[in-house]
């Protein structure tokens, strides 16, 4: 009973904290737009903010709630104390939330694997500069023009129409764009986002998606000719109508606001690109505050556990 009560209390705390932080993030994320940062940094920040409720709830639950219950909850007296209706109900809610997240991930992954397997029938490696290991040519009609698929072993799929439509330079730069998504592990990030659903997050997710596209554009382009080639590839491939909706765990080349992306690429200049360096967090700035924070946590861990225990007691009674 003690263990069950501990699990129920921890899950209650987790679900309440998760909902509170998610609601805060859903409201407050727009202020990030005011930041003057590169798209790469912005995409990183938006993703971090999107998964903050889940990570913070898990860390706080395991670092404070579970130990505080283990150490401070009396075991001998009131051993027949029940779980209580509120912790039980909220515990079930937390389990449902976790189950829902797992189900969404499994469904997305299964559907993606099924669709990608169909696209890959009769596919062969494409001999391009980007590397034959990662680029695959698809001859199936329903395959999308240019897409990054896979989480563990990602690869870029190129359709017959894409090879026919694009010039060598355009195909090369479009592949660089998809490889930038691969380096950022955007498919994995999509899966993580699917694991932590919360109403009101759609706009943040869409902003992250658009930012990730712009960041991949920036990563691919290194001179004005590249920028024009990428814009041309984007416009040409936008004419191809997809036969079916692409699955979740893929990143298509023609995604996001095409006009915004083309306008940005046509306005690309080396001077501006040189100015816009991604936010580099130097070790000198990170290590001392981290050490101080860790010391503070160690020094105040006992009182923090006592406080957490009081809060959980107040929550469940």
């Amino acid at each position: 009973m003690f263990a069950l009560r501990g699990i129920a209390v921890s899950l209650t705390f987790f679900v309440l904290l998760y909902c509170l932080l998610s609601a805060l993030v859903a409201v407050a994320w727009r202020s990030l737009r005011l930041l003057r940062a590169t798209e790469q940094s912005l995409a990183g920040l938006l993703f971090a903010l999107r998964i903050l409720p889940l990570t913070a709830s898990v860390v706080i639950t395991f670092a404070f709630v579970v130990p505080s219950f283990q150490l401070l909850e009396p075991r001998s007296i009131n051993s027949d104390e029940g779980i209580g209706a509120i912790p039980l109900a909220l515990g079930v809610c937390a389990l449902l939330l976790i189950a829902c997240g797992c189900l969404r991930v499994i469904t997305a992954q299964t559907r993606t694997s099924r669709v990608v397997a169909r696209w890959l029938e009769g596919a062969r490696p494409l001999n391009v500069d980007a590397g034959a290991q990662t680029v695959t040519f698809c001859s199936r009609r329903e395959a999308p023009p240019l897409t990054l698929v896979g989480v563990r072993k990602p690869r870029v799929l190129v359709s017959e129409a894409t090879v026919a439509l694009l010039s060598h330079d355009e195909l090369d730069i479009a592949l660089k764009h998809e490889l930038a998504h691969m380096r950022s592990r955007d498919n994995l990030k999509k899966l993580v986002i699917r694991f932590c659903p919360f109403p009101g997050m759609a706009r943040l997710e869409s902003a992250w998606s658009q930012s990730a596209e712009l960041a991949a554009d920036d990563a691919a382009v290194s001179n004005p000719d590249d920028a024009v080639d990428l814009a041309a590839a984007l416009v040409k491939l936008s004419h191809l109508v997809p036969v079916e909706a692409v699955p979740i765990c893929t990143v298509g080349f023609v995604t996001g606001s095409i006009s915004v992306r083309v306008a940005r690429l046509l306005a690309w200049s080396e001077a501006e690109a040189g100015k816009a360096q991604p936010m580099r967090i130097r070790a000198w700035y990170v290590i001392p505050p981290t050490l101080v924070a860790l010391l503070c946590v160690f020094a105040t861990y006992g009182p923090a556990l006592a406080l957490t225990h009081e809060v959980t007691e107040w929550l469940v009674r």
Partner: protein
Amino acid sequence: MTKAFSIFGSGSRPQLGPFEQQLLQKLWSHGSATVRELLADGKIRQAYTTVMTTVDRLYKKGFLDRVAEGRAFRYTPRQTPEELQRVAALEGIRQLLGSGDTSSLPLSYLVEALSAHDAQLLDELQLLVERKRRELKTRGPR
């Protein structure tokens, strides 16, 4: 904006006349204003009572909020231009979808219109790309 008002004005949202639109635009630029403030710059040539009646009508139609300020009212638009445009567009689409006997038919008009718009937009983007490419070529080879 004006087009959105006149096209989609016949739904559940009351239609706006040209003078009502002019006053609403003015209120958006001011943020909030009394009738006297609206008339202050002299761009509106109507009489005080005409403006007062019109903003009162806008208030009754649900476009404005008002608070008493002395013996007059201070009017504030309830929605931003973007919000109002969104509502107008949604109402227009709702009307279009509910207009035909065959439910899929109006949707096909919408898809057709969007496809035509997309194609036109892509053509314009293509022209921009070609222009930029020519510009880069005249500057010098790669």
